[in-house]
């Protein structure tokens, strides 16, 4: 019998692509890319952020960048998280969807209206004004479609994700992850980190430890997190890692701040310009 790792190696060498984008591989890949991008950026010159935040699995990269976790511990925990979430996803037919054009309060009310015992949906990611993500049982999200549109949503777009992340359906994953978190050393953060679940800033190792346990089934309060960073004095935002999605969310939330992304060498000049001011 082949080990899971061997199976994955075969799949990565031979495909299919769908397997490669599943959460157990995608999560460590995102964090490794983020840490590698930061290493390259630091190699090019001083990067001294006033504060940091990471979106969802990106919190692990932020913890490593702020000295809370060493790179190996961050990657070990991300691997444990990904495995636990993949296992939780196999127990439910769940997914996520973007809801365009509806505020948090009416969307939350719509989610409550369509949720039933064993089939619920919640507001999972508050990414930017007018860009909220719901997560839950697939049939609950189907029921939400008409109710949310009646409440004023312009569109509901299904997301190609592995399961109902940041919802109650991920609580089993948190329990499985807790043991790995307890076995890991957390240090005081070098700079304030704004946490997904609370949108509060902290450098305290116990609060940082608690966050990683609860964030897996809690909403990502990204709008408030970005606003908190601004309150802490941040007027330039650099997204470090793959893609440019977070930069777009920051621009929508704070139209007047300067924003750039760094995930590949092609972005180096614009990232350097932002850092230099």
């Amino acid at each position, binding site marked *: 019998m082949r080990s899971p*790792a061997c199976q994955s190696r075969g799949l990565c060498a031979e495909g299919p692509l769908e397997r490669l984008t599943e959460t157990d591989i995608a999560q460590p890949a995102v*964090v*490794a890319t983020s840490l590698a991008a930061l*290493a*390259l950026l630091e190699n090019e010159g001083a990067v001294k952020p006033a504060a940091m935040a990471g979106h969802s699995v990106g919190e692990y990269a932020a913890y490593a960048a702020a000295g809370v976790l060493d*790179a190996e511990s961050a*990657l070990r925990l991300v*691997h444990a998280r990904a495995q636990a979430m993949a296992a939780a996803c196999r127990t439910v037919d769940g997914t996520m969807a973007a809801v365009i054009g509806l505020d948090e309060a009416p969307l939350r009310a719509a989610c409550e209206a369509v949720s039933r015992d064993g089939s619920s949906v919640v507001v999972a990611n508050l990414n930017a004004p007018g860009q909220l993500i719901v997560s839950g049982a697939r049939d609950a999200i189907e029921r939400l479609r008409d109710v949310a549109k009646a409440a004023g949503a312009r569109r509901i777009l299904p997301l190609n994700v592995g399961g109902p992340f940041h919802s109650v359906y991920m609580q089993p994953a948190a329990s499985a992850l807790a043991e790995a978190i307890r076995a890991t050393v957390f240090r005081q953060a070098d700079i304030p980190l704004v946490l997904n679940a609370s949108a509060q800033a902290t450098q305290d190792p116990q609060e940082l430890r608690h966050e990683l346990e609860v964030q897996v089934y809690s909403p990502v309060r990204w709008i408030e997190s970005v606003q908190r960073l601004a309150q802490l004095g941040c007027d330039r935002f650099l997204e470090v890692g793959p*893609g440019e999605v977070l930069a777009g969310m920051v621009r929508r939330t704070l139209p007047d701040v300067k924003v750039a992304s760094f*995930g590949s060498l092609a972005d180096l000049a614009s990232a350097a310009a932002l850092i230099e001011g």
Partner: protein
Amino acid sequence: MGTDLQAASLEAKRLFALADEVTGLPISRFVR
């Protein structure tokens, strides 16, 4: 994502190798 980072920085390359080792998954090949 990641291929150019690995080529440009020894530390980036080390981090991807560490991800492979820690997870037992071919992360460095995945991000090509």
